[in-house]
């Protein structure tokens, strides 16, 4: 049985990463922007797994594990920050949060 070439997975990961970047730049709502970061991390994971597979190593998979953990940690802190912010302001629009400038 023929198998899907790894490069396809890689391209997919690239697309997802790119979309994540676009999302980060495009979205205004803090939470969704945060989500787009998660999207990017997922894309990275895909790349890791694909590479691991290509080289039939396990390191790549271990990295995925670490990435997920880190993602979780970031999520915790990040959402905490979001909540904190939401307490002091009404809007979650990132463009409205610009006291600090110049």
């Amino acid at each position, binding site marked *: 049985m023929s*198998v899907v070439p790894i490069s396809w997975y890689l391209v*997919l990961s*690239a697309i997802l990463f790119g979309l994540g970047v676009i999302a980060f730049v495009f979205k205004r709502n803090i939470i969704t922007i945060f989500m787009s970061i998660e999207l990017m991390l997922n894309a990275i994971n895909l790349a890791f797994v694909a590479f691991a*597979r290509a080289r039939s190593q396990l390191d790549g998979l271990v990295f995925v594990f670490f990435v997920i953990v880190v993602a979780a940690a970031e999520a915790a802190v990040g959402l905490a920050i979001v909540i904190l912010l939401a307490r002091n302001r009404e809007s979650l629009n990132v463009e409205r949060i610009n006291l600090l400038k110049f």
Partner: protein
Amino acid sequence: MSVPFFVFFACAVLAIAGALLLIVAREPIHSALALVLVMISLAILYLLLGAPFIAAVQIIVYAGAIMVLFVFVIMLLNAGVEERTNWSKIAKYAGLPLALILLLEIGHWMFRAPAGAAIANGVGAPGSAASTTGLSLELFQQYLFPFEATSILILIAILGALVLARKEE
């Protein structure tokens, strides 16, 4: 057209669709669900790549835990419709186009990656290595130190979340 191909395409399309949905959706909750969609489809791809453990973690931790957290926060703050302000010229005229270019650039070079053709050339067959035992051995011997570090990392996260989100006394 064999099964793996079909599965791959299906998941790929779903993932991309989810990503696009994440972008276009105006309701944060929709974006969250779209992201879940992406994750699940990726999990399937992991299976396809012969990494069942990672797939499982993907579903449980990511979709299960992290995204739930997101949804929870969205609910908590009942974040309404996203207002599409356009105050950043540079994001509009430079950021987005360049992001697209970045996508193409990375995609191009990923496609031409030397390791890329591996499987097509037969190498990199899924060995016993991919088994969970092998993985755990890797994790607890080779990568013991970062693993321990992550424990501290999680501690930090808890601590931080605690400090920041705690109600003012």
